[in-house]
């Protein structure tokens, strides 16, 4: 039965028709705005399932990563010059018809320097670090191909790739999907992936603790929800789970037990990891700035709990420039089987600083410039980023009585160029 047959109802129906007609007239302008924004990288992953790219794009980043030398007071033996990495990243994206696109990511990096080998007891109970000698020019190449198909309110993606080093090979594949609901104000995301890895440590014959060949399998899944709160506010929360099985130890590290360092790093053969990441985005129109806030809670069955907080402010200047200062705070507890050194052997033992209790802070500053429609329909973006990372027991949320001497600090410099053609 049709409701409302009076004059007031007819006026309200006319008003609704006028608003819909005005919206259709505005849409072409809005389409131009959104399509020009879509032309620039980074929009994929916004608060909705997005749409395929309509033109070819390419990105190149060069990064220089340099760890601080180990302080002399913490060095027992070995080379104090730590890792340096030169990293090249390539990315290309292209449309495949009206409803799909493909992404190719390639990373090639060259690594050199010394790494922590084992931690020794100085004699007074103070842990000191024994480093390896410096390695020279180790290389890693990583490639990942992703194809996506877009429905009216959903997206499905499949990916496959590999990572290759002189002593390590990993093959991986994954599937993921997005679903838009509530007039595209809500997006559900989920996916899974797996990875099969093989490690054949170098110089295994020279070290009794080093295996000649081992395998590892990793299975991951995630589920998340994005919600538009206001015209200028969006929130996303994602739950991730990863199960690892096989050889999960570090073949290049050893453990000192009762003064004897000839013991292998020996970790459990399984690991279950959980991460809950929440992201908040808030644009402040009067100052043309956007706040990014991320928080992650992490737990695993090795005993590690960690907290990560990241804050960034994206300040747009004169439409074409952007300055992004950012800060990151990280704190983790230790693994159950971690100790700098041991007085008696245990089933599982590691002195790896990455399993020790500590905290870390980092500052990052990124400056970028955008150039649109030059020449012709080309759009460009160039940026320079510097990040400074410091770690130490003093930054941890909990009190740390014995800081691992191998904790790392580093600088990371990146220049980047992006084009849309």
């Amino acid at each position: 039965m049709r409701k409302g047959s009076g004059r007031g109802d007819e006026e309200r129906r006319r008003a609704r028709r006028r608003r819909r007609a005005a919206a259709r007239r505005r849409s072409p302008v809005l389409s131009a705005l959104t399509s020009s924004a879509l032309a620039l990288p980074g929009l994929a992953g916004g608060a909705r399932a997005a749409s395929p790219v309509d033109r070819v794009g390419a990105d190149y980043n060069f990064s220089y990563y340099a760890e601080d030398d180990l302080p002399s007071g913490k060095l027992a033996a070995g080379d104090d010059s730590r890792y340096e990495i030169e990293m090249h990243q390539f990315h290309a994206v292209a449309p495949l018809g009206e409803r799909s696109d493909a992404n190719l990511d390639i990373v090639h990096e060259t690594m050199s320097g010394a790494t922590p080998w084992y931690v020794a007891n100085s004699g007074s109970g103070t842990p000191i670090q024994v480093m390896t000698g410096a390695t020279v020019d180790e290389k890693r190449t990583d490639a990942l191909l992703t194809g996506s198909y877009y429905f009216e309110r959903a997206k499905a993606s499949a990916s496959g790739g590999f990572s290759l080093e002189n002593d390590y090979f990993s093959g991986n594949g994954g599937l993921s999907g997005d679903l838009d609901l509530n007039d595209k104000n809500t997006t559900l995301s989920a996916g899974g992936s797996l990875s099969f890895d093989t490690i054949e440590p170098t110089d295994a014959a020279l070290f009794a603790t080093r295996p000649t060949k081992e395998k590892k399998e990793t299975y991951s899944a995630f589920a998340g929800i994005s919600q538009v709160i206001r015209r200028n506010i969006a929130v996303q929360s994602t739950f991730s789970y990863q199960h690892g099985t096989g050889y999960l130890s570090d073949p290049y590290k050893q453990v000192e037990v009762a003064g004897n360092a000839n013991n292998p790093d020996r970790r459990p053969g399984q690991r279950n990891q959980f991460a809950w990441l929440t992201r908040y985005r808030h644009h402040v129109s009067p100052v043309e700035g956007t706040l990014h806030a991320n928080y992650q809670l992490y737990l695993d069955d090795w005993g590690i709990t960690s907290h990560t907080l990241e804050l960034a402010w994206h300040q747009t200047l004169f439409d074409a420039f952007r300055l992004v200062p950012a800060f990151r705070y990280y704190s983790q507890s230790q693994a159950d089987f971690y100790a700098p050194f041991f007085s008696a052997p245990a089933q599982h033992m590691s002195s790896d600083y990455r399993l020790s209790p500590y905290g870390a802070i980092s500052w990052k500053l990124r400056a970028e410039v955008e150039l649109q429609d030059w020449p012709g329909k080309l759009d460009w973006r160039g940026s320079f980023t510097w990040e400074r990372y410091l770690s130490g027991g003093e930054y941890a949320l909990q009190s740390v009585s014995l800081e691992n001497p191998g904790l790392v600090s580093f600088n990371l410099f990146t220049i980047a160029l992006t084009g849309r053609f």
Partner: protein
Amino acid sequence: MRARPGRRGALAAALLGALLLGAAAGCAPVRPWERDLLARPDMAWEPDSLEARRRGHVFFSKEGSLQGGSAGGGGCGCN
């Protein structure tokens, strides 16, 4: 006694549900013609996917946690 991972995970999931209910309660539906600000590059979850991959790889190599947000990509000898 420290809670086991399963119990800690259940608590995290309950907090997540409360957060999402709270966020949904404060929502005002945004119409398609009002999405100009949401379409800005700096409103994306990851404005620069290469930077996100790079930093995720660095922290995965140098720290003891998972980098959340999405699954995908393979392993390396870096950790």
